[in-house]
């Protein structure tokens, strides 16, 4: 029974994670400009791969693997916002304006 539960949770995590990743990818394609796409990539993408990692950790039933999966996830959490920040900042500074749909840009007049 435990095995079934474990398998079910793992399967759920796998499907959920990959769907999050897919959603992020769709967002990447659909969203109108760079800055909005970044939301998609830095959130849905991170959570998606985090869930998949966690699924792997869980299914292994090995605390070491779980710990590593978690460590990996934490690491993504550390890096994802930084890379988003760096990229957005660089893009904005090098003259990539917000898309036409945008309503406000407080950074433009600095």
């Amino acid at each position, binding site marked *: 029974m435990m*095995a*079934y539960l*474990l*398998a*079910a949770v*793992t*399967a*759920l995590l*796998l*499907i959920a*994670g*990959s*769907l999050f*990743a*897919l959603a*992020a*990818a*769709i967002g*990447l*394609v659909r969203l109108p400009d*760079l800055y909005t*796409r*970044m939301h998609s*990539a830095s959130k849905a*993408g*991170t959570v*998606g*791969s985090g869930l*998949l*990692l966690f*699924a*792997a*950790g869980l*299914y*292994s039933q*090995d605390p070491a*693997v779980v710990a*590593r*999966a978690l*460590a*990996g996830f934490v*690491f*993504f959490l550390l*890096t994802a916002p*930084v*890379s988003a920040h*760096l*990229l*957005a*900042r*660089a*893009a904005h*500074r*090098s*003259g*990539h304006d917000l898309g036409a749909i945008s309503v406000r840009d407080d950074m433009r007049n600095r």
Partner: protein
Amino acid sequence: MITPAAIVAVASSAALVILGLALLLTVWRVVAGPTLPDRILALDMLTGIAIGFIAVIAVKTGFFLYIDIAISLGLVGFLATVAFARFVLSRGNIKSPPSASAAKGGAKRRRAGRTEG
């Protein structure tokens, strides 16, 4: 009889297919751009999906040692994005006249080369 392993196998196969789709979409963004940061963002995302892909393969094959690969990929993927961000920044303002930025390095400007990367 549906065994736990079978459930996971099906789920992981499905996950692989979904991730494959995600990969393709991301690759499309890489190629389509339109701007340089868009591509960089997509590549960053590609790394993220690859990490998930590896995790799924770990589940599918039962070799959880693959997780370490995923972790390292996260590490260097970050480095790649940082480097690309630098690339964007150091390229200078795309709206200013190109000669100002291209003169850097003292090299003769390419006649036909395009500055947009």
